């Protein structure tokens, strides 16, 4: 009797299951068509051109002046505009909300001529008054409100380091900036996303809540934000360039897992995906329905050697490690060759890069000699810190650490790999607790100062100078370069700086990676920007 019962039961379940599946399928066919529509030309049933952009994390705030992380700028770049713009795929200076800009001889006064006929999304006129109000808002703030203002312009109103003495309107469309001292990267700073001009009416009304209802002059205006899920922006009909934007709507989706994001792209749920694993690059290239985008490199991944901790206080030991590590093999294996092998702390695309430096070649014999000279003929034991998270400049910290571990073993150095949760890792490293640690940096404005001074000057010990490297000669050069307005002289100073750093070897520079994105094959005119925030006004579907 048992057998019979089983069969009738299974039959019953089968019937139930097929009913469920049938129900599923009928609802399926309806949406399937819509999906197909989107696959062909990125448009929904209403005929709008919608681009869904998948990325790793959500934004923190949509008021760009209050944040420092890239996921916020990715969105605000399209809602707001800056007085000056970076080039399409570089950090040269181009017109933005200002059409003309003139520095004075001494570099202390800048006169900007503004674009006429521009309106904010709320209907407020864009003019000199609006620019002044934005700068006043920042200058009267504090570092916890406007962190980038502090780091780029030296402080706030009344503070000694503050670079901007005054911002005044002369007529409706001229703004004059007076500086307390010359600042070489001033124009590059002005072009940075955090200094985008917001509607004064809106931020005066909303105060701290402005980041939830952002209003700018950009090609897209804000629609909706579902936290940790999606941010929707749509075409601004009153945009000053009537031909733009070409898309009707852009939806930014947070998809934290890299493999899941690629799955979403293959499934058609998204049109464009940021943060593609180097290992998946060839998969994307092999798929005719997809295309691979390379973001020009503006980063550096390195192995930092804490110069205050023995034996790394000995320059010969640091040089020995530079000779011992096979960078080429690391770039080939873990960046899939999609990276430039690093020899300096900044990538070659940045002006001031010193190409005359040869870099340390892979030479374990020489490394052993140097160790012997330093009195470590038998090697030593050390901790090697591996980043717990993937970053564009370091796709897989643990694997890179293992490769380095093997290299060091060859010269008799026993390295134990250590890792902590990310915030802990940074905290401990900034306190100088690591012997040697993997880390990296993505530039903010494409200026050499933003790499060398920020990462290796004595002033930044405890913040971004994790190696505690402090060279007085280098410091003098870097401070001089900050105020040197003559481009050639300035580049010369940075070249000298790189020579000093090469000799002192506080890092083993590893790679300047090319971060990857993937999109549907029919996306045109998408040019990923080295800063990581992409302007989508030109983007279209074929």
């Amino acid at each position, binding site marked *: *009797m048992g057998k019979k019962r*089983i069969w009738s039961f299974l039959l019953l379940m089968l019937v139930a299951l097929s009913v469920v599946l049938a129900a599923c399928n009928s*609802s399926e066919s309806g949406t399937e068509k819509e999906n197909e529509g989107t696959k062909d030309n990125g448009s929904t049933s209403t005929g709008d051109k*919608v681009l869904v952009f998948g990325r790793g994390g959500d934004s923190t705030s949509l008021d760009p002046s209050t944040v420092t992380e890239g996921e916020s700028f990715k969105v605000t770049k399209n809602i707001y505009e800056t007085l000056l713009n970076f080039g399409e795929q570089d950090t040269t200076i181009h017109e933005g909300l200002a059409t003309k800009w003139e520095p004075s001889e001494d570099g202390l006064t800048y006169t900007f001529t503004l674009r006429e006929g521009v309106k904010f999304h709320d209907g407020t006129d864009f003019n000199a008054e609006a620019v002044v109000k934005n700068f006043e808002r920042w200058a009267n703030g504090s570092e916890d409100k406007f962190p980038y203002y502090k780091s780029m312009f030296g402080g706030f109103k009344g503070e000694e380091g503050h670079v901007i003495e005054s911002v005044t309107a002369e007529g409706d469309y001229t703004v004059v900036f007076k500086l307390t001292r010359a600042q070489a990267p001033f124009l590059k700073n002005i072009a940075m996303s955090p200094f985008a001009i917001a509607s004064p009416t809106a931020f005066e009304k909303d105060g701290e809540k402005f980041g939830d209802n952002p209003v700018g002059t950009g090609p897209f205006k804000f629609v909706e934000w579902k936290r940790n899920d999606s941010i929707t922006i749509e075409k601004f009909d009153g945009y000053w360039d009537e031909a733009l934007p070409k898309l009707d709507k852009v939806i930014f989706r947070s998809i934290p*897992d890299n493999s*899941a994001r690629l*799955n979403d792209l293959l499934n058609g749920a998204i049109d464009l995906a940021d943060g593609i694993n180097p290992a998946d690059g060839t998969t994307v290239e092999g798929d005719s329905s997809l295309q691979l985008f390379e973001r020009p490199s503006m980063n550096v991944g390195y192995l930092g050697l804490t110069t205050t901790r023995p034996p790394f206080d000995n320059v010969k030991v640091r040089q020995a490690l530079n000779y011992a590590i096979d960078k080429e093999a690391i770039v080939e294996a873990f960046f899939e060759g999609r990276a430039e092998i690093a020899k300096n702390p900044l990538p070659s695309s940045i002006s001031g890069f010193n190409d005359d430096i040869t870099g340390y070649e892979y030479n374990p014999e020489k490394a052993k000699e140097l160790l012997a000279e330093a009195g470590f003929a038998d090697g030593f034991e050390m901790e090697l810190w591996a980043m717990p998270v993937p970053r564009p400049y370091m796709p897989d910290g643990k694997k890179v650490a293992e490769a380095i571990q093997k290299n060091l073993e060859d010269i008799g150095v026993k390295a134990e790999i250590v890792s902590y949760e990310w*915030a802990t890792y940074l*905290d401990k490293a900034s306190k100088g607790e690591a012997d040697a640690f993997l880390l990296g940096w993505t530039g903010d404005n494409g200026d050499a100062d933003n790499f060398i001074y920020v990462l290796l000057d004595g002033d930044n010990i405890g913040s971004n100078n994790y190696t505690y490297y402090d060279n007085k000669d280098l410091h003098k050069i870097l401070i001089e370069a900050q105020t040197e307005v003559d481009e050639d002289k300035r580049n010369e100073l940075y070249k000298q700086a790189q020579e000093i750093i090469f000799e002192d070897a506080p890092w083993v520079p590893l790679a300047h990676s090319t971060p990857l994105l993937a999109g549907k094959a029919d996306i045109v005119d998408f040019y990923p920007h080295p800063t990581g925030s992409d302007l989508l006004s030109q983007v279209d579907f074929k």
Partner: protein
Amino acid sequence: MLRYIGKRLLQLIPVLLGMTFVVFMIIRAIPGNPAQVILGQLATKEAIEALEIKLGLDQPWYTQYFDYLIGLFQGDLGESMRTVQPVANEIWPYLAATFELALFAVIIAVIIGVNAGIISAWFQNSWFDYLAMVIALIGVSMPIFWLGLMEQWLFGIELQWLPTSGREEVRNPVSAITNLYVLDTILQGRFDQLGQVLKHLVLPGIALATIPMAIIARMTRSSMLEVMRSDFIRTARAKGQKMFWVVYKHALKNAIIPVLTVIGLQMGLLLGGAILTETIFSWPGIGRYIYDAIQYRDYPVIQSGILVVAFMFVMINLFVDILYGLVDPRIKYD
């Protein structure tokens, strides 16, 4: 009954208080400074100190703790350090997303798990029994991360049946009322969207249901086996009642109590947010909310997030305890 519920609710207070204390101490024991994380890597020391004062981080821990408790008693869950929003406003959409998914997963787990358990017990040592228990064993030990990615690959990419991530079709977004999208779409009569929302629930729901389903199936089977051997079952069969009713009415009713306990525990666990499932399927739930907060050292969000989750957990268990009485009249609350 009411007295019992009242008593249980009173017992909640020390439990939750103890928990706030433990969480408070643990998150402050981990290294990392919220002010540093908020201000970013370029921040100066002075700015970090200024922000610490503003956030009250310069105060001794007991002052911070009591300030927090006083806020709690006034119904203030604190303000997120990162987004500068009150946690009470921020937390609901995440909680709703998790609740919807957890409920869906538990329904799947209960329907399949309980039935599989019953049939396995009924036809003990049959091939169905062996098969079901082997599947259950695989289910308990399945790495969810791998299962999720395989589901996406098979149903999302190869077969193109189901969406691979998120809660809704973003090109046709749901306008949120309660943030329980199934309910919202019904309230608005948007049945096209209801279909999409349900489809989005399927893959993460299955991934999340796998382990509870297996646990429930095994629990049901063992509990049923015990009951099926008792005298009243033999009596019921002896008087000629159909086997189906013997199993589903008499036996199940007597075997269900431990199963209910397990279901309650599992539901409570799922409400804590399944960080892996939420990550793979980009589900904007409470697990990821709290996990992100830990990365940013956003103390108020971590504290209040865990508090809310714990509260839900205790409430579910209370609910299960009350259910016992309804299912089994022999259980009385006094």
